[in-house]
């Protein structure tokens, strides 16, 4: 009896699996065979993001209808494991023609020959924001439709009530002013006045805090040679910044409690929030005109914010490079770029699209992000060593946050990065 039911379960399951996969295969088989248009495979990181997918669907439909030589076929993956899917596909020799990638990973994938030089007409790439173009060794490998930007969110009413000067792009807060403001706000009853986003993990740490390090005069790596982090990540400027970073947690100006996102600010639990353009619509809806979008503080070398978001490239194994380029050229139209901006709430990569967009044109509510990006955006170092640098930076910064000795932690991080670079023969530099 028991045995028979086991056999039944197995055979029914196996039969259904076979039937289901047969359906899938049949659907897939149709496109590839015959001598119709050539298939261009394309992967995005946007599964679960209907707003973004909608724009891609529109572009692809338009492109497929505009000519009959190629058909773009797309598959989308959830962002959290997108890089894993790409690495696996590369190992299996199964990369798609077109793929998107996060800005800082571009040099790594270019060096590994996952992707090839983009070779789009300069009329397109020259018009894009510099941080929306991914390069390695002075060659363009990827280009994106938008960039993101970070800023400090604040309430005008709160700053006014506490007599705190409202900073501008021309005259941002100095770090002393910023500290004084935090002290004032803490005294005014905010338990931790600044939400710096430290509860997050992964790439956010390098994206959010390495620009502060750069503003203080340090960096992740010596960008002249790309061969060592010594002096950049552990010099006196870096130590000064990380001491400030450690003290802000110790003084209770900020914390790593709380939740990812901007809810604490919208609820007025924190007075200032260091966060991204993607949270601006939510805060605008929550507090309206009271919302201020302010430049981050100047640690000495002028404020900096991180640049570089998702960009598109063509894989080295693509068997229809011309078609892939044709599609990309087609896709970089201002109307599409503006639509991405509207749906995603991100900064459009071209000036013309800025004007077309609902939120980022002259006088629009989110315009300050464009100005911040133009004035301060700095891409993360364009080296294949970036994944190691980023992971090491995150670990070091977290250790410092929880109280470890600043200088020795940074020295350890430098040693780790330099060892890695040496063992990879300088990553082509």
């Amino acid at each position: 009896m028991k045995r028979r039911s086991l056999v039944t379960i197995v055979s029914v399951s196996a039969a259904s699996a076979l039937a289901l996969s047969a359906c899938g295969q049949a659907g897939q088989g149709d496109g590839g065979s015959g001598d119709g248009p050539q298939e261009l495979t394309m992967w995005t990181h946007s599964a679960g993001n209907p707003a973004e997918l909608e724009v891609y669907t529109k572009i692809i439909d338009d492109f497929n209808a505009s000519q009959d030589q190629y058909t773009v076929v797309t598959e989308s993956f959830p962002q959290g494991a997108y890089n894993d899917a790409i690495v696996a596909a590369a190992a299996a020799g199964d990369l798609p023609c077109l793929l998107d990638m996060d800005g800082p990973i571009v040099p790594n994938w270019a060096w590994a020959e996952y992707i090839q030089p983009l070779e789009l007409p300069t009329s397109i790439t020259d018009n894009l924001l510099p941080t929306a173009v991914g390069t390695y060794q002075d060659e363009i490998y990827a280009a994106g439709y938008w960039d993101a930007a970070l800023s400090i969110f604040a309430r005008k009413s709160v700053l006014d009530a506490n007599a705190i000067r409202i900073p501008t792009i021309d005259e941002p807060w100095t770090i002393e002013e910023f500290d004084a403001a935090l002290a004032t706000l803490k005294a005014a009853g905010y338990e931790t006045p600044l939400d710096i986003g430290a509860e997050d993990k992964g790439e956010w740490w390098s994206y959010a805090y390495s620009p502060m390090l750069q503003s203080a005069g340090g960096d992740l790596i010596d960008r002249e040679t790309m061969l060592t982090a010594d002096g950049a990540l552990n010099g006196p400027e870096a130590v000064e910044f990380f001491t400030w970073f450690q003290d802000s947690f110790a003084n209770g100006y900020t914390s790593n409690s709380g939740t990812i996102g901007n809810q604490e600010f919208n609820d007025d639990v924190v007075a200032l929030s260091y966060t991204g353009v993607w949270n601006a619509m939510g805060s605008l809806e929550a507090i309206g005109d009271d919302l201020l979008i302010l430049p981050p503080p100047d640690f000495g070398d002028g404020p900096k914010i991180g640049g570089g978001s998702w960009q598109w490239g063509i894989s080295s194994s693509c068997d229809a490079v011309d078609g892939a380029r044709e599609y990309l050229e087609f896709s970089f139209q201002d109307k599409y770029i503006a639509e991405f901006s509207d749906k995603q709430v991100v900064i459009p990569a071209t000036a013309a699209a800025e004007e077309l967009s609902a939120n980022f044109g002259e006088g629009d509510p989110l315009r300050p992000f464009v100005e911040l990006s133009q004035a301060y955006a700095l891409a993360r170092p364009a080296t294949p060593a970036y994944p190691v640098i980023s992971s090491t930076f995150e670990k070091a910064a977290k250790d410092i946050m929880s109280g470890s000795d600043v200088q020795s932690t940074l020295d350890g991080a430098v040693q780790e990065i330099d060892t890695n670079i040496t063992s990879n023969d300088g990553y082509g530099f």
Partner: protein
Amino acid sequence: MASSTTSVAPARPPATPDLARRRSSAGARGERRSGLAMAAPAAILLGLFLIVPVLLAFGLSFTNARLISPNPPRFVGLDNFIRAFTQDPVFLRSVLNTFLFAIVVVPVQAGLGLLLAVLVNQKLRGVTFFRIVYFIPVVTSIVVVSILWKFMYQPTGLINSFIDTMTFGVLQGADWLNNPRTALPAIIVLSIWQAVGFHMLIWLSGLQTIPGELYEAARMDGADAWAQFKNVTWPGLRSTMIFVLVTITISALGLFVQIDVMTQGGPQNSTTTIVYHAVRKGYREQETGYGAAISLIFFVLVLVIALVQRFVTREKD
């Protein structure tokens, strides 16, 4: 066979020793053949989908292979192993943390699991409900569970306000996950809470194999509850105990997800584990060769522990 020649057979020869020998050699052959046949499906599948990739990965541990690289891997001998033991304090810390974790988790989780199993093994109304409730953390997505506990461990989180209330403000909670002294204990508590329901179930199925008559007999002899537990329950659970200990040890040594979601090995390496370190190095930082070397060291450690456990708990016939 032997009896097929019936009536014609005159006096039966004294064939017993010969027959026994023949039967046993045929039996041994059958045993060899059956053993091979029954082990074959699993052995073949293991070979294809575990041994081959593991050997590929181990091969990498003697090279400088990278996850993503245009350069072919170079043979570097024992460099990766030397690096792990002499130049990587985080690795050594990971080994220490992993063992600390296992040493606490194995006995506590086994004991608590047994307590729960004994509770829900009673003939009481509603025990099924409690069994399911205790099992819920096991089946809830560990990612969601870890996120929830991360909230609770915050300085102003539920755990601290609970401590505050229960002790009338005498004891102050810590910033659990940010303090190098409390982070690992915090992870230990969460891990036990999450997995103990599973071991309750194993104990429970063990308890159910103890025949009721034994209790009956013990009670007749006037044994109280504790004496019954000591003289009937515990001896009856021997094989289950080995089973529970092995399961907990193995899964404790493989600690990874909670670390990845909650602390990423911090603060100051106080929660990094061998598997977490291997993944961080070999995967996130793309040093496949080095990550493979750490994994190889890990395999050897697990192997030694499993052998020791087998030796200690072997049946003493």
